[in-house]
């Protein structure tokens, strides 16, 4: 058969429904690279492709996509509420832990600020007390340790308000020990006047409020950290003040 006789059968051949003998004839033409039939079949395939899209549009199930991809080794996450619920649960747990942590941190921070505030209040009170003593109209000053490498400093004594000790060259007390100030009355036993520590630089300030009317000497000894009722060691220094009190 010639090409002209086969042309009406190109489309049928292209979609695989050509009858014999046309089917075999077209195949034979194609096998010998017949340009007319090759071109005709190419156009017929285009018509077939166009007809392929004429079916009423329908949607496959959403699972089909996952099936196809799984068949080539791609794991698809299945859509569902489980991931969202898991995410919500995880978020909730995170929020609980996070806010509990935040609350704990906030509580710790508040406690720390309160502690700082308390310390600053104590320091401010001490400074105010020190100023009150220094500025007292009846305050006298005694210097001790001058010209010596040992502890030195000044003692401010107000007979009505108390005593202020400012010292330097006073190395920090050993572990378990602290400095204790003594007010020694004229002819009497030393009275405890408070414990204190010196800084790493060797400076110290100590205030003891109270009447100093009978004070004769201010002394400092190294005592156990808990303090002593009476001196247990030789005074590091002693500042006589009786003569200076009016």
């Amino acid at each position, binding site marked *: 058969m010639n090409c002209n006789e086969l042309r009406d059968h190109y489309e049928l051949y292209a979609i695989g429904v050509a009858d014999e003998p046309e089917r075999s004839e077209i195949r034979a033409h194609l096998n010998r690279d017949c340009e007319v039939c090759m071109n005709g079949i190419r156009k017929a395939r285009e018509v077939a*492709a166009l007809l392929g899209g004429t079916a009423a549009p*329908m949607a496959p199930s959403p699972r089909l996509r996952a099936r196809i991809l799984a068949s080539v080794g*791609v794991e698809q996450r299945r859509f569902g509420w489980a991931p969202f619920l898991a995410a919500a649960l995880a978020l909730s747990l995170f929020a609980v832990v996070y806010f509990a942590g935040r609350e704990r941190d906030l509580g710790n921070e508040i406690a720390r600020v309160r502690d700082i505030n308390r310390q600053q209040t104590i320091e401010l009170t001490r400074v105010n007390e020190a100023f009150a003593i220094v500025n007292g109209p009846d305050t006298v000053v005694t210097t001790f340790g001058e010209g010596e490498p040992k502890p030195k400093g000044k003692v401010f004594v107000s007979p009505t308000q108390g005593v202020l000790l400012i010292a330097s060259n006073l190395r920090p007390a050993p572990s378990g020990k602290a400095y204790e100030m003594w007010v020694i009355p004229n002819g009497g036993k030393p009275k405890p006047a408070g414990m204190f520590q010196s800084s790493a630089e060797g400076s110290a300030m100590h205030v003891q409020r109270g009447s100093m009317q009978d004070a004769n000497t201010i002394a400092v000894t190294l005592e156990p950290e808990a303090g002593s009722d009476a001196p247990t060691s030789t005074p590091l220094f002693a500042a006589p003040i009786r003569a200076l009190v009016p």
Partner: protein
Amino acid sequence: MMLLPIFLAIHAAEDDTGLVARMQRRDPQALAELYDRYGRVTYSLILRVVRDGGIAEDLVQETFLRVWNRVHGFDAQKGSIGPWLLAVARNRAIDYLRSAGGRERNAVEFEETDHPALYCDMEKDLLSADKARKVKSAVEKLTPNQRQVIELAYFEGLSQTEMAARMGQPLGTVKTWVRTALKNLREDLGAVVSA
């Protein structure tokens, strides 16, 4: 035959060249994108042939796997993968229909039309919305008998002899309807298909 604007779904703004290249590099995500682009039209075509949703889905899966396994033979620079995909889909569906009906398979033609190289010289925008409208117009112009034989051939894979038996018409009459229908389609679609 109703021609619906399904072409709109398959006419992707971006051509398929990059998609095919990625599939040839065995990028599974490219297969996912191919399905997103052509899955509905492929399913619609196969469902139109086999008329069973479950079977249609199995055949869609077979179609995409077949394309995935044969894509290395497709030259993306010379054509769009869409027409080839639809040809494979139709062949899978008709093959199923013939097997289920105890009919002989035209295996040779199927193997030929499945071959990707045969679709490499087609226009890249063959399945455009504009061409879809022209196909619709051409099909609507056919007489009922002409339209029926085209449907039986394309969607049921019947040969002219089988059509004559199905329709209870003389083979000569059916051949005339087929010849006339194809001639009319060819003339109307002359400007649509490549010259």
